[in-house]
């Protein structure tokens, strides 16, 4: 696949070619922006974690990559390249074929992601009719599904369904890119660990790029190579996990990390982030003057806000391996702490 890219697009400059490159992606739902100017890239074998609160645009970003967006959504991007092909210019049938073979999506809510009125096994055969289904099911410890050909989704637990969906989206088709949109949010803790192990094992054996969306920073620390932090539709900071967890530069990232229980000393209160979530802020902003799109979206909640932050939106600054959208990113963290 890599040689095809070398011959197909001679202008690609970085030698270890990225499998997925998103540049300046915008998504609107009926005129309301959900993703604004996100750029990111992903290499084979790499796991990129995407974190951010509800409504920050994580899921929309994922849907925009696969092209499965609800009616009324509008996508604009300077580029959405997947393995050398520009996805935004592909005819729908080609895009469908890419979804059918090269990009896998593990959904957020396993319990409702299979049709309730058709037996699970029959649905699995819609997508994968190979002889190796028994082997694949054995890999996730669910060979018994073969003995339950008449059982509908409601007879299975969330964890079982999620493992079955992983079989379909990842193991059976061995995609180049796997998008996991909060795959463990609705599962209990032990099942979560099971699913994570499954994903890591998959990465080690087959080497797909994985985009892992989550609220859970602990999971990010555990499995991801790099992490992107989203706030109000923007990627406010991205970089290697080690970098972001030890020296976060964006005040939002810092606040997120401060709210982690493990990082808080015993006896001290957990850090809570001041202000309101994006959804609340956008709502109140829409009710009031519609002007407020200038300036940094995090400014109303930012502990180190400057007058400039309300007027001028920060542009992404590259600092070593880290990319940050903050006017004060250049200052040393210590200096900001004192301010």
């Amino acid at each position, binding site marked *: 696949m890599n040689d095809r890219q070398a011959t197909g697009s001679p202008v690609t400059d970085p030698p270890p070619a990225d499998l997925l490159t998103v540049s300046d992606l915008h998504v609107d739902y009926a005129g309301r922006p959900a993703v604004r100017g996100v750029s990111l890239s992903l290499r084979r074998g790499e796991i990129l974690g995407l974190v951010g609160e509800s409504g920050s645009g994580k899921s929309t970003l994922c849907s925009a990559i696969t092209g499965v967006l609800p009616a009324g959504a509008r996508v604009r991007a300077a580029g959405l390249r997947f393995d050398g092909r520009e996805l935004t210019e592909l005819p729908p049938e080609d895009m469908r074929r890419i979804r059918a073979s090269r990009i896998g999506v593990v959904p957020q809510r396993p319990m409702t992601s299979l049709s309730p*009125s058709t037996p699970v096994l029959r649905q699995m055969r819609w997508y994968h009719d190979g002889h190796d289904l028994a082997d694949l099911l054995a890999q996730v410890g669910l060979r018994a599904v073969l003995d339950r050909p008449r059982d509908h989704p409601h007879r299975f637990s969330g964890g079982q369904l999620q493992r079955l969906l992983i079989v379909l989206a990842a193991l059976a088709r061995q995609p180049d890119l796997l998008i996991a949109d909060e795959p463990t949010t609705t599962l209990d803790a032990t099942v979560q660990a099971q699913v994570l192990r499954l994903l890591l094992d998959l990465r080690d054996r087959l080497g797909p790029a994985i985009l892992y969306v989550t609220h859970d920073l602990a999971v990010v620390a555990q499995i991801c190579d790099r992490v992107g932090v989203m706030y109000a539709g923007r990627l406010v900071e991205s970089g290697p996990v080690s970098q972001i967890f030890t020296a976060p530069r964006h005040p939002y990232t810092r606040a997120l990390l401060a709210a982690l229980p493990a990082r808080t000393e015993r006896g001290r209160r957990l850090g809570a982030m001041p202000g309101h979530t994006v959804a609340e802020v956008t709502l109140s902003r829409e009710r009031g003057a519609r002007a407020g799109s200038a300036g940094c979206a995090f400014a109303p909640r930012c502990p180190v806000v400057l007058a400039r932050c309300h007027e001028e939106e920060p542009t992404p600054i590259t600092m070593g391996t880290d990319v940050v959208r903050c006017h004060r990113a250049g200052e040393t963290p210590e200096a900001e702490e004192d301010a």
Partner: protein
Amino acid sequence: MTTVLAVISLVFVLLRLSPGSPLYTLLGFSYSEEGRAAVAERLGLNASIPEQYVRYLRQLAGGDLGASVFSGQPVGELLAQRLPVSLELGLVAGAVWMALGILAGALAALRHGSPFDGLVRVTSVVALSVPSFWLGLVCVLVFGVYITGVLPVSGYVPISEGLPEHLRGLVLPAFVLGLPAFAVVARTFRGSVLEVLDRDYVSFATSMGMSRRTLLARVAMRNAAIPLVTVMGLMLGMLVSGAILVENVFGVPGLGQLMVDSFRRQDYPVAAGCCLAVAVLYLLTNLLVDLAQLAIDPRIREGVLNGGRVR
């Protein structure tokens, strides 16, 4: 069974409580006290109401529906004549209109927001708000006065006199009778298809690269049909009651006409027999709906298997 008993009792009591008596209609101008007593004696109407009730029930239990007070014709025989006419009208109207409703609803949902969608929505609201007796009269006016000779506006041609003529006679009554069913089915199905298209399992199937056509056939329509079955059952019931008005407007000799006539003349056994027939029809439709749901929705099926369903 309880329902049927309740219907019988209710009809019985209401008929007896309503003013007048078949005796007056029967005797007419030759009314006299002696005549009345004689006829009442013959028809068993001089017994007390509870007595009459018990006697009627006993008769029913033996499978006898009684006979018309006027013609002496057995009620069972009358029903056997009239019921097939109504059933045919109702089933034709229901089948054609509901099929159209499903088609229109599905297309409207798939072309959500298009002019066709708007047309379906407006048509359903209009079709639901127009009373069927008025629409029936308009049809009679249009096809009886302005455009004559195309469709018969009244009368009924038995099937023995030729299928084409027979069907031609059914067109207008079936049109008027089935229109509300079309409206309700189209609206319901449009709504449930739209809802289903928004579900997680549809996005998952799409993200797995399932083609739109396969997705609609395997996933969307199948799940959207579950609420539809209930509504279609209700509509079949509605077709039975709608038949009462429509049959009278178009002069179709079905159960509806028999019912109205018998009530007007207070022909107790016939009126009760008609109501009994309608009640049984309703119950059968309900049973059919339940069975259809059982076949289509696994969750209900399991409820039954585990004995979780309360009758």
